């Protein structure tokens, strides 16, 4: 056992650190650090820089632009990217639909979509959840009827993140209404410009406009946009959801938040001392740091184990990454709010106002919205309750 990184790993880490902190524009990284939303352009700009170096899609097959990295390298890549406040590649593109197309699409589909997806020439969004099917995804009802060489799609998706930015959407649709829940579902790629698609934003309580409803009204989709085989979409969805187990803990991200909290706590006063000298505050922060360090070690255990496990199998410890990672992220937003103090109160998201100068310190503006917004991390992508159900069955055998 040797928990030190090898010389090669350290060289790779340093290379990544340098690259993320120099190649990605400072203006974009500052927005990530502050918790400000990125524009579509910001996201595409960052991804193209990564892609130019071949670092947008390291998890893809090498022939389609992937890197043959060791699990440790993947970990270092993510950790450095997050610590540098560099935006992650668009997850819908690189972690979700890309790997599905690479695994299950035909050659024609791969050629058509993969390079454009890697380079964010297509901006994807995900159409899985529906109003009636939150945690119970398999109960979805959006319907695609085969008519000649087309599917006619009718129904509604919800919680569609960044649909307003998207060129295409990948959807789970019901192609066999007679089949049992998980059977009869297909995986379909749909151009957002197709007539009959309506996007309605859902404003979240923090004032954000990340998520949407997407309505399909007799939307005609060429049959060649079906991924893999009809009625096998559930398998592809499971494959998709099973990817990216480790990045989900967002350790690097939380490290960046801790750095930020310490930075700001040196600027804010509690009585005669800066908050960074307040023992109670430091102990609260240190308690989260301990959990984060433990989570990082847990993640490294999982990462180091990956190459030894059969494809598709998981280290039991991997199951806790999302549960614990989400709680830590949320706790850090609480501490950030505490640092800011009374200045968390002004609400000054730019799209709400008239571009007036900021009230209070600039870093205060996103503290409360980030706290509100981060409640989602224990809800979206399989709520923590669903995670516990799954772990109890799959890992504990209960």
């Amino acid at each position, binding site marked *: 056992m040797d928990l030190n990184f090898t010389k090669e790993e350290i060289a790779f880490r340093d290379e990544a650190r340098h690259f993320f902190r120099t190649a990605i524009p400072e203006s974009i990284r500052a927005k990530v650090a502050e918790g400000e939303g990125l524009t579509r352009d910001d996201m595409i700009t960052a991804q193209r820089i990564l892609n130019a170096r071949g670092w947008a899609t390291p998890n893809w097959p090498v022939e389609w632009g992937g890197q043959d990295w060791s699990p440790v390298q993947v970990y270092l890549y993510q950790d450095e990217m997050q610590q540098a406040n560099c935006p992650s590649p668009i997850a819908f593109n690189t972690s979700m639909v890309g790997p599905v197309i690479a695994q299950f699409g035909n050659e024609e589909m791969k050629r058509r979509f993969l390079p454009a997806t890697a380079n964010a020439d297509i901006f994807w969004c995900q159409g899985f*959840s529906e109003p009636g*099917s*939150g*945690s*119970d995804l398999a*109960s979805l009802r959006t319907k695609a009827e085969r008519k000649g060489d087309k599917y006619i799609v009718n129904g509604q998706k*919800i*919680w569609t993140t960044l649909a307003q930015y998207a060129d295409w959407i990948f959807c789970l649709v019901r192609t066999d209404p007679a089949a049992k829940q998980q059977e009869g579902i297909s995986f379909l790629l749909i151009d957002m410009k197709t007539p009959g698609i309506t996007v309605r934003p*859902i*404003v*979240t*309580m923090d*004032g954000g406009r990340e*998520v949407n409803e997407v309505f399909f009204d007799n939307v005609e989709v060429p049959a060649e946009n079906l991924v893999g085989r009809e009625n096998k979409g559930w398998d592809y969805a499971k494959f998709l959801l099973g990817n990216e187990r480790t990045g989900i803990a967002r350790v690097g991200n939380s490290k960046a938040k801790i750095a930020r909290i310490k930075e700001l706590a040196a600027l*804010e*006063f*509690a*009585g*005669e001392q800066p908050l960074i000298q307040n023992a*109670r505050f430091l102990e*609260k922060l240190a308690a989260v740091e301990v959990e984060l360090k433990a989570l990082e070690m847990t993640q490294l255990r999982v990462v180091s184990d990956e190459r030894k496990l059969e494809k598709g199998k998981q280290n039991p410890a991997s199951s806790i990454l999302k549960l614990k990672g989400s709680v830590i992220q949320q706790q850090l937003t609480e501490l950030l*709010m*505490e640092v800011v*103090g*009374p*200045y*968390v*109160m*002004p*609400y*000054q998201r730019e799209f*709400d*106002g008239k571009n*007036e100068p900021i*009230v*209070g310190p600039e870093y205060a503006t996103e503290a*409360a*919205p980030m*706290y*509100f917004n981060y*409640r*989602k991390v*224990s*809800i*979206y992508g399989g*709520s*923590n*309750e669903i995670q*516990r159900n799954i772990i109890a069955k799959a890992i504990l055998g209960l």
Partner: protein
Amino acid sequence: MDFDLSEDQRLLKESVDRFITDQYGFEQRKKYMREPAGYNPAMWDQITEIGLLGLPFEDTLGGFGGGGVETAIVMEAFGRGLVLEPYFATVILGGGLLRRAAPEATLGALAPRVAGGKLKLAFGHVERHSRYDLADVTTTARKDGSGYVLNGAKSVVIHGDAADKILLTARTGGERRDRAGIGLFMVDPTSPGVARRGYPTQDGLRAAEITLDNVRVSAGDVLNDNALPLIEHVVDEAIAALCAEAVGAMQVMQDLTLEYLKTRKQFGRPIGSFQVLQHRSVDMLVALEQARSMALFAAVMAEETNPIERRKAISAAKVQIGRSARHLGQEAIQLHGGIGMTNEYAVGHYFKRVTMIDQMFGDADTHLAFLARHGGLFGRAA
């Protein structure tokens, strides 16, 4: 000991509750929020008509001499409605300061106008680096003839943009953070040298930044030149009021969550039939009932004259409300899932309000530290 409301209190409660039920549904509130003032002037008039603006004043001044319990009755109902109008700023803070810290003549002149809905007030006490310390005042008041000249700035003045007059602290003597030498002044926001900038707060209410550049205050508007202990008493009353408001808001979050659990179906059954969600709802109930108990305690103790006993009790209540509200609020969002995250649905608005209440006049841990420093609530063995 008797927890029953008196006849008058019962009547007060009925009329406030009716007002909220009839006028302050969630959809109605959304409309009020879109008014230019950020609240609905017609509602202000109704609140005036019910007579709530006179709460703290004697009947000779147009009020009804309400105390902690009456305040709690009103504020709990307002918490259920998430009332937008500047009641807390005008009556609880402003009215309280007039009553406790102003010369009798000033009180006599202004209280009837407050009670009549003609005079809206706000209280400026936060400064850029003061955090929650009421004694951390760097705004200066320089004696000038019979009046004073003020220089400085006040931050996050709740409903400062609606106020006809701003009450604020400025230092008449002593060093920053000294308890002595903190004066209380009344400033007309339209006077020369006063700049005011209003903005919405996270919870949909309003606040303002106030800057003071050689602002002259006449002798009549100097409420008190050494007022900290009196201000502290008013702030304690205000905290008690916020505790009651938070309980009202928490009750709604609890009700909304239970309603959702009973109606929302997943995996073919109401999600409220899942044992995990049942137990977590019970823990929310525990948090709510504990908070309700402490809000009651605060309502009664807000009138305590021994300042240390009073402040300890109020701090204890703020701790409980802060912790209960955080737990209950986070769980309410979590158990709702996605819908709970949206701005269209009510629960998030209550969550935001209780989150901001925790920030007002010191968060839970700040009050816990105060309480601990003063020996806690229970004495050593007799």
